[in-house]
C-alpha cells in the first residue's frame, strides 16, 4: 500500500475528527460530497456529519469564526483554499489569533491549513509561499512539512498545540510524494531533521525545496561531494541548534526557500548562523529563493522562477569552490 502526502493530510484529519470531539473543519468547499478543491477532506463530511462545514468566500470571517470557536474551547481546522487567499485573513490571523494569548492570557488553538507553493500553470495568485510573512509576526507557529510522514504527524500535532499553527502544506508534494505507511509518532514539534548526512556543505531547506535539494545533492554526490541536508520542518520556531551543529560539521551553508527573496526564512537562518556561528564558516553563507517578481503562469517561466535542483546544484558548486 502506498499513501500520498495529500492522503496523509486527509487521514490525519479523519483521525482528529474521530478522536477529538472539539475538532471541526471549516473552509470553502470542504464539505458535502466535494471534499475540498484538492480533496483533502474527501468523504469527511459524510463520515462526521455537521463537523466539516462549507463556508462562504469570506476568508476574514472564516478565520474570525475559528478564533471565536477556539476561545470557547473548540479545536477548529481551517482550510484556506489556497495559501494566497489567506492574505484576506491576515488581519484575523496576525492581529487577532497572534496577539490573543499575549494580551488576554487565553490561548487560541486553531490550525490554519495553507495549500502552498507553486505548481505548473497556477500563476501569481495560486502559487504563493507565505510562511515568512506568518513567521515574522509573534504568537504563531509555522509548520512546513516536507514528507508524507511529517504531513501526517505534524497536522495531528498542530491540533494538539494550544497556540495558533499555520500549517503550510505544499501542493506540488500532494501527489508527488508517497510513503508505505503512516507513522504513529514523529519528531517533536520545532525540531529539524538531518535528512542526509554530509561533510562538505549544509543545505538548509523546508517544504518542497527539501525534495529539490535532495535531487541536487544526489547529482553532486556523483561528483564526490557529500552534502548534508537539513529539513527545518517548522520555520517557527526555527531549530537553530541543529543548523549550527550541521554547519560545524561542514563549514558551508546554503539555504533554499521557495518564497520571495526579501527577508524571510532563508535570511533568518543566515543571520543566526553568522551571528552565532561565524567562526564555523569557511565561506560566506548563501541562499536561493524565488525571484523577486510575481509568480509566472507559463511552465517555462515558472520553473525558472523558483529554486530547482539545477540552480541549487549551480549555487552549491559555486559555494564548494570557495
Amino acid at each position, binding site marked *: 500500500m502506498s499513501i500520498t502526502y495529500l492522503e496523509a493530510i486527509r487521514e490525519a484529519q479523519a483521525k482528529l475528527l474521530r478522536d477529538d470531539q472539539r475538532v471541526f473543519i471549516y473552509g470553502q468547499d470542504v464539505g458535502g460530497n466535494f471534499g475540498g478543491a484538492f480533496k483533502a477532506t474527501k468523504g469527511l463530511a459524510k463520515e462526521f456529519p455537521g463537523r466539516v462545514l462549507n463556508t*462562504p468566500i469570506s476568508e476574514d470571517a472564516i478565520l*474570525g469564526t475559528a478564533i471565536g470557536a477556539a476561545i470557547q474551547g473548540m479545536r*477548529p481546522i481551517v482550510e484556506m483554499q489556497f495559501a494566497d487567499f489567506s492574505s484576506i485573513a491576515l*488581519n484575523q490571523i496576525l492581529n487577532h489569533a497572534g496577539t*490573543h494569548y499575549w494580551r488576554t492570557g487565553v490561548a487560541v488553538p486553531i490550525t490554519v491549513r495553507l495549500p502552498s507553493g507553486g505548481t505548473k500553470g497556477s500563476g501569481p495568485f495560486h502559487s504563493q509561499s507565505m510562511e515568512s510573512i506568518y513567521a515574522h509576526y509573534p504568537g504563531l507557529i509555522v509548520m512546513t512539512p516536507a514528507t508524507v510522514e511529517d504531513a501526517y504527524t505534524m497536522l495531528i500535532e498542530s491540533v494538539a498545540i494550544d497556540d495558533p499553527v499555520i500549517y503550510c502544506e505544499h501542493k506540488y508534494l500532494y501527489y508527488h510524494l508517497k510513503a508505505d505507511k503512516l507513522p504513529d509518532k514523529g519528531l517533536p*514539534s520545532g525540531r529539524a531533521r538531518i535528512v542526509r548526512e554530509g561533510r562538505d556543505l549544509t543545505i538548509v531547506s523546508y517544504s518542497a525545496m527539501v525534495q529539490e535539494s535532495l535531487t541536487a545533492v544526489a547529482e553532486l554526490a556523483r561528483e564526490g561531494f557529500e552534502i548534508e541536508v537539513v529539513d527545518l520542518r517548522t520555520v517557527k520556531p526555527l531549530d537553530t541548534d541543529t543548523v549550527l551543529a550541521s554547519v560545524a560539521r561542514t563549514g558551508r551553508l546554503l539555504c533554499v526557500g521557495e518564497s520571495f527573496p526579501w527577508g524571510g526564512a532563508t535570511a533568518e537562518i543566515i543571520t543566526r548562523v553568522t551571528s552565532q556561528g561565524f567562526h564555523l564558516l569557511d565561506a560566506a553563507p548563501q541562499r536561493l529563493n524565488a525571484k523577486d517578481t510575481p509568480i509566472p503562469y507559463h511552465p517555462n517561466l515558472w520553473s525558472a522562477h523558483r529554486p530547482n535542483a539545477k540552480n541549487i546544484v549551480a549555487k552549491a558548486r559555486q559555494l564548494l569552490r570557495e
Partner: protein
Amino acid sequence: MLQTAQRTVKSKKKKGALPHERFLEAFRWMLLARTLEEKLVSLYRGGLITGGVYIGKGQEAVSVACGLFLQKSDIFAPLIRDQAGRSAFGEPLLDVTRTYLGSRLGPMRGRDGNIHRGHPRKNELAMISHLGAMISVTVGALLAKRFKGEKNFVGLACIGEGGMQTGAFHEGMNIAAVEQVPLVVVATNNHYAYSTSNDREFACHDLVDRAIGYGFEGYSLDGTDLGACLDVIGSAVKRARAGRPPQLVVASMLRLSGHGEHDDASYVTEEVKQQPFARDCLKVAEQTIIDLNLLDADTLAEWRKDAVAQVEEAIAAAQKEPAPEGDKEDWCALSMPDLSDSFE
C-alpha cells in the same frame, strides 16, 4: 420584517409598560460610566494616563442596554464606547482603571491598554482595533456553544457606523446569517467616523436597510432615548434567544466627545449639535426620571455620590498597584513556551 423603534416604543408607552426598575438600573450604570469616564479624562489631561482615552459619552443608553439583557453565559463583544454595557455585563471597575493605568495586576497586565480589554473566559471578548473583526469572532463563539450542546444562549456584538463600512463587517454579518447563530449586532450611528461625517461614510438611504440583505431582522432606534434602547435591544436579544434570525439594531445619536480625548472634535458643526440625535441620553433619562417622579432628589444625589465613590476607590486601588517592568516580562507570545523561538 423591518420595524421602526418608534412604533415599538409608542405601543409600549400606550400600555404604560415602561419597566421602571430596569430603567432605573440602566440609568445607574450610565451614571457610573459617565462618572468613570469623566474621571479618566481628567487623569488623561493631567498626564496620568498614557496612550489614549476613548469615551462613550452620548452612547451610554445604547451601550447599557447591550450589557443589561445578557446573562453570564452569553457572549458580549463590546467596542470602544461601551463602558456602560461592559459594567452592566459584569466587568468590575477595577478592570477599567487597572487597564487605563497599566497595572500589572489588571486583565491586560500593561500589555494592552484602554478599551482593548476583556475577559474571554468570562465571555467578554477583548476587541482589537480593526473594526468589524469582532462580528465573526462572536459568531465562532456561538458556533462553539452550539457544538457543545449548550442551549438558550445569545451573543451581542457592538459596532459603529464607521465599522459597518469594513469588509470584515460584511463578511461577519453574512457568515452569521449563514450559520443562523443567535446573534444581535447593535450598531451606533454616532454620525462621525473619527472626523468623517456620514455623507463620506456611506451612500445608502438608511443603514438598517442592509439587514434584509444579510438575512438579519433590522430595527432602527433613537439612541438618545433610554426607554427605547431598553425596549428595542431587549426585544432583539429576546428574539435571538428564541431562535429568530440574527438581529441588527441601528441606533442614532451624536458622539458627545472627540474620537479620543486627544481630539477636540472641532469638525462637529453647530448645526449638527442642534439636531434631535445630538441630545445627551443621560440628561434625557434623568429628565424622564424627574418627570415621572421615579426617584426623589435625595436618592438621585445619593446615586451620584455613590458613583463618585466607586470610581475614586477603583482609581486609588489601581494607582497603588505595581506597573509592569520590562526585565520581569517573560516576552513569550505563546502559551506553550517550549515552542517559542529563541532570539538570544
